[in-house]
């Protein structure tokens, strides 16, 4: 267990208030929401209350919220469901090169089923433009899916503008908002979002519960058959306690959101600026402005990310990296490669994602131990200014 947890993009702790809200639904109000008796009806009420909480947080109507098992299921369902429901209209899907694998692998699977997918490139900060989207639309395009904010480098995409383009061209627009919900304000009406995926455990709710928003009037095919739950669209006895948990968690997460986001952003900037001041040959991955309030992502020249993670772990600090060694494959993060980083620099990435309970003292501690960790690993590395083939120009790639 780490004393300092800076991996909140991976998952967050369930907040005590959320847990308290959930507990009675395991042992007391455990009814099957489909049952006629009052124990079942109590459960049903709790689910509908949570549906209202989730809907309110994104400007949706409760009837437009479907509970799922998490972000990956929501992405799978939205994309496959929309693709198959619109198969007679066309077979073309537009997405970006930096989506989460729940989107990318779903699109790759659809390609095998005969759909065509355009993977748009992003700029050096990880942004795709509405103009790129518009230029990619053909008369066969049935779906645009672009993430609200990137999970690795924190880039916030121009979702409202992409939504407007999609609306003008009468193409469905889905966004994976797994990292954005509870982090930045979202409004599905103002942003012209037709479908939105979220996951409870990213904002201090429990794991194993997510939601998909589907705008009223839009029909998507069912992914899980076998029951009347979720208006016949997603079968299976509801994850009652989980649903209660995501409802409470999203309510807490979106309270005073702008104030909390401003505080987190200031802390994030102090971390990034502190690193840049103390450590030479470091670049920031993702934009300085228009990034998730809690996301700091850097690449450290001449060393590899996993070794940094291990050193940080030994110092009691939990972080993550886009290095190949943390992915179980030989390739580093597809996101870091997509923003133009060479493999060597992508392998040297370090992501620290702050949480609502991150303190100034914790940031100070990171700034104290990180320079020593990095100079130690650099002293051990075969790569340096003389031996590395990556030039300053390539390393900074116009970001400095």
């Amino acid at each position, binding site marked *: 267990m780490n004393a300092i947890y800076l991996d909140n993009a991976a998952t967050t702790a369930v907040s005590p208030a959320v847990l308290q809200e959930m507990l009675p639904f395991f042992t007391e109000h455990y009814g099957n929401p489909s049952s006629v008796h009052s124990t079942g009806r109590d459960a049903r009420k709790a689910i509908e209350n949570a549906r209202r909480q989730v809907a309110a947080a994104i400007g949706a109507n409760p009837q437009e919220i479907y509970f799922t098992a998490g972000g990956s299921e929501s992405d799978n369902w939205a994309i496959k469901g929309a693709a198959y429901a619109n198969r007679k209209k066309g077979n073309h899907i537009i997405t970006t090169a930096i989506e989460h694998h729940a989107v990318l692998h779903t699109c790759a699977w659809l390609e095998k089923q005969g759909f065509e997918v355009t993977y748009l490139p992003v700029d050096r900060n990880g942004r795709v433009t509405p103009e790129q989207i518009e230029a990619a639309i053909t008369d066969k395009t049935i779906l645009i899916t672009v993430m609200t904010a990137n999970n690795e480098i924190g880039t916030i995409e121009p979702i409202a503008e992409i939504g407007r383009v999609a609306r003008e061209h009468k193409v469905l627009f889905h966004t994976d908002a797994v990292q954005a919900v509870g982090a930045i304000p979202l409004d599905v009406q103002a942003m012209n979002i037709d479908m939105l995926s979220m996951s409870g455990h990213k904002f201090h709710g429990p794991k194993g519960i997510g939601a998909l928003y589907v705008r009223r009037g839009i029909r998507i095919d069912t992914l899980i058959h076998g029951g009347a739950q979720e208006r016949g669209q997603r079968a299976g006895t509801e994850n009652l306690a989980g649903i209660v948990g995501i409802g409470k968690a999203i309510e807490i997460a979106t309270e005073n959101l702008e104030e909390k986001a401003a505080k987190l952003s200031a802390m994030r900037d102090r971390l990034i600026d502190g690193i840049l001041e103390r450590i030479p040959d470091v670049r920031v991955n993702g934009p300085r402005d228009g990034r998730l309030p809690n996301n700091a992502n850097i690449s450290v020249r001449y060393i590899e990310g996993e070794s940094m993670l291990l050193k940080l772990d030994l110092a009691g600090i939990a972080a993550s990296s886009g290095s190949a060694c943390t992915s179980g494959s030989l390739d580093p993060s597809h996101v870091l490669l997509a923003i133009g980083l060479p*493999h060597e620099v992508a392998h040297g990435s370090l992501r620290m994602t702050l949480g609502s309970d991150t303190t100034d003292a914790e940031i100070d501690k990171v700034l104290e131990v990180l320079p020593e960790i990095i100079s130690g690993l650099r002293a051990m590395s*075969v790569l340096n200014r003389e031996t*590395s083939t990556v030039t300053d120009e390539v390393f900074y790639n116009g970001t400095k």
Partner: protein
Amino acid sequence: MYSDKVIEHFSNPRNVGEIEDASGSGTVGNPKCGDIMKMDIKVEDGIITDVKFKTFGCGAAIATSSMATEMVKGKSIDEALELTNQAVAEALGGLPPVKMHCSMLAEQAIHAAIQDYQKKQQAQG
């Protein structure tokens, strides 16, 4: 996921550095896959009297480099050539399957350094 032995070698790596008048030197791996290892050896009367490494890589790459240097130091060239990646991995109390290629690099780096030494010997005639 790592054994205590791997963490111990990663935290306190042995024989880090370079040998100025090395008898042989070998570099293996590439930045694309995220691991590069350089081994320098000093050979006297057919015995590896000193060995140093520098590694760009993950925890397993650094730990296997460190362990491999310990295993060949004081050994004859012939003995050092018998070093296998399995032996390095076993000495570390095992490696996760995805990290076995790191121990391969350690074996290759030692072999490359010895080959370099042998080439230089032949050149001297």
